[in-house]
């Protein structure tokens, strides 16, 4: 934690290596967040790089070191929300099934496939929980709902996924 603080101080002064190291701590989760929310690898990549650029421009204004991760994800989730709005007005190609690296990749593909069937809001809520690490209160503030509502919607979304994965359609 102290090391991170040190890095942030340096990054704020323009030290690009420090910024790169901070980014290295979270970049995988950033991509996972974007991919799971947008269901599209190409757009996820775009949105994450846009976020990196945006964050780099603003990091001088980040005052609290502890808020780094949440702050970064805030920018990312806003980018994703914007992207989702764009999708409403155009046909989006279905995400390609990427080659997986793990051993249980069939189950992973199944899980991802069920996840894709959730609504935009449901995917955002779960991504914020798992990849951004937000509390339900934080998620609620970003999505205009109370913490309780966030938890309730997440629970329902997970039950929906369970139904889908159990073949109950």
């Amino acid at each position, binding site marked *: 934690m102290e090391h991170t603080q040190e890095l942030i101080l340096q990054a704020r002064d323009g030290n690009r290596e420090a*910024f790169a190291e901070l980014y290295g701590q979270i970049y*995988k989760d950033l*991509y996972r967040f974007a991919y799971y929310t947008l269901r599209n690898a190409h757009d996820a990549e775009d949105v994450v790089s846009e976020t990196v650029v945006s964050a780099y421009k603003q990091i001088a204004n980040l005052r609290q070191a*502890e808020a780094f991760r949440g702050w970064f994800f805030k920018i990312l989730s806003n980018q994703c929300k914007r992207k989702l709005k764009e999708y409403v007005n155009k046909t989006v190609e279905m995400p390609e099934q990427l080659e*997986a690296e793990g051993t249980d990749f069939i189950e992973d593909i199944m899980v991802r496939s069920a996840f894709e069937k959730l609504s935009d809001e449901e995917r955002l809520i779960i991504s914020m929980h798992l990849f951004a690490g937000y509390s339900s209160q934080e998620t609620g503030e970003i999505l205009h709902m*109370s913490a309780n509502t966030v938890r309730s919607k997440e629970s329902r979304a997970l039950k929906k996924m369970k139904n889908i994965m159990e073949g109950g359609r």
Partner: protein
Amino acid sequence: MEEDKKILDSIKKSAESLPIPDSLKPDNLDNILKDTAFAEKNSEQDMTEDTKMTDKKKKITSFYKWGGAIAAALVLVVGITAWVQLGGGNNKSAMDMTANSSADMDTTESVTAESEELNSEDTQVAENSAEVSEESAADMTEEVTLGGVLTQASDYQEIYEKYASIQSSAGMYARDGVVEYGAAADGEASISAQAETAGVESASSQDNASAAGSADFSQTNIRTEGVEEGDTVKTDGTYLYVLDRNTGVRIVKANAQESQLIKDIPLEQTSGYAREMYLYEKRLIVIVDGVEAGIEEAEEEDVFDINQQQQTTVYTYNIENPEEPKLLGQVSQGGFYHTSRLVDGYLYVLTEDSRMLPYAKTYGVEDTNSFVPSVNGEVMAADDIYMPNTPDNGTYLVMTSVKITSPAHFIDTKAVMAMPYMFYVSNSNIYVNGSGWNQTASGSTIVRIAFKNGKIKPEAAGWVKGYLNDSFSMDEYQGYLRVLTTDYVQDATQNALYILDEDLQVTGKLENLAEGEHIESARLLDDIGYFVTYKQTDPLFSVDLSDPANPAIIGSLKVNGFSEYLHFYGANQLLGIGWETNPDTQERIGLKLSMYDISDPENVTEIHKKVIEGIGDVTALYNYKGFLINPDKNIIGFTSQTWKESGSESNYMVFSYDKDQGFTQNLSYKFQAEGEEEYMDVSDVRGVYIGNELYITRYDQMEVFKIDEDYAQIAVFDWN
């Protein structure tokens, strides 16, 4: 909750095998940033931040002493349902249930023989002067105590001390690392207005019948006749009002193929999120959630908007001439919007507001904004606040009333220090089901708040074992509240029915019902109630509620699958909408419509059913307002989702019912274009009929069908 965690884990695990593109790896950062100049600290951005701070300062002075640290720490204040369930917090002894509420408001038919007659000192109630001694902090004797559970505050010092006593570390969720969520009760208890599963009592009420246009038009599917509810689409038989949550309201002249968009009313606040609308006489009411008006949420600058005040605002428009709506007034209250009701020309708005725990302790009792909610930018009076003996968290349920004909100010405002979870509103009472205070066993608290002609008064508080499935698990009749609960005891579940009196004390009960099952749906009406449990056998139970001291199960019908929603459909018939399942594997086969003959409650039979295979979800099951059901018009409409290979198919389906033929599917309109399977969120879709036309509305689109021509589609409109 366990199952939820398992699925979350599997999602997380599935993400681990997702390959990250090389272009995003840290060693490629230079490439990403190649054209980006580093912005120095003393840039314009800083200036804008300071200006914003000053603006906010004008409204709430002490708020911004705290600086950016709050942004990070504030977010640690969350609901602690799970914590309470584990019996955490102060382990006081079982609640003292001695009721001591003095009712001083007129209630209507809910008054029983014994209940104290209300005097007509309504105005005094509104000022709260008779009830509470504001003068001395020491004099507590005149406080109203509700069931030993809630106490009306007499001054800010008392509230401050109670607030500051909340264990700030308990129930907070770690920010990094494992994030524990308090689970919604397994019975899918839901909070937001959208998530309530409820149904309609009556055929369409004609409260809003307009002079022009057809008098035969559908209304919002509401729970209690005479108690209007907000929705995303409203009609007066001539015009359709359609809510586009991020944009505003569209006013459409409904005229079959000749329909036209005649006006767009933009949202009054830039970062607002519209929730619901009401039509009342010649007024349009729009309820909007958002951060404090006047502060823009610039996309790039919103690093610190976590500490902005969440507000819910009610805008009232004059729509005598729908082409020129006029804003008549607006009022706002702190917090996230939960729900509202419109009764006799008064709108009652309920929000959930979190205050600044744990910072309230640091800043002292003078900083009332940190521990007391505000309405219209002003901190509420101390005697408007009701507190439990041991509050679990810093959340308030804020309740206000507005007279529609004078929409620029509140008639009454009250707040209860409680985490609101679910609501049921009868003609004269708001019942709030919430997380527990003061208990070692798991259960639900219920608070009864009486309302009439704009006056709001918390009057009783009680507790029952177990959890409520949805708002239909509560029903009031002749002053008694009937409550259905499911209790999770280790691995088993038990269900119960409790009958509570006006003081929310148990007068009669049935316990240990349908062990191993949980309640999926309920419909209680006057003397008889019906409820469904699942899983294993899914009986539809009939219960005799005529004697408050002795409720009795008088019948049970075993069927496959289960109904998640029950709706009375004509004389002696009960419609059930739910799922058909394979009796051996419990696997879902599809959607099931059931019609039950309830002419003899002791011998209910399922006279017809219709199963539509392949359907995976019906959003209206989470929000009863999504149902269009009218037995007189013989129409049953709702949207459904069918999961496909890589997406889904969303349909609006319409059915009718005949005693001999059973159910007939009259329409299944697919929203996606031919060959497309893009997932579509259809939770805001409504089917509205005016005369012989059915209008299927989304926020930006509308299709029109001719009901008397076999639901032939006659038009499609795109408002984009």
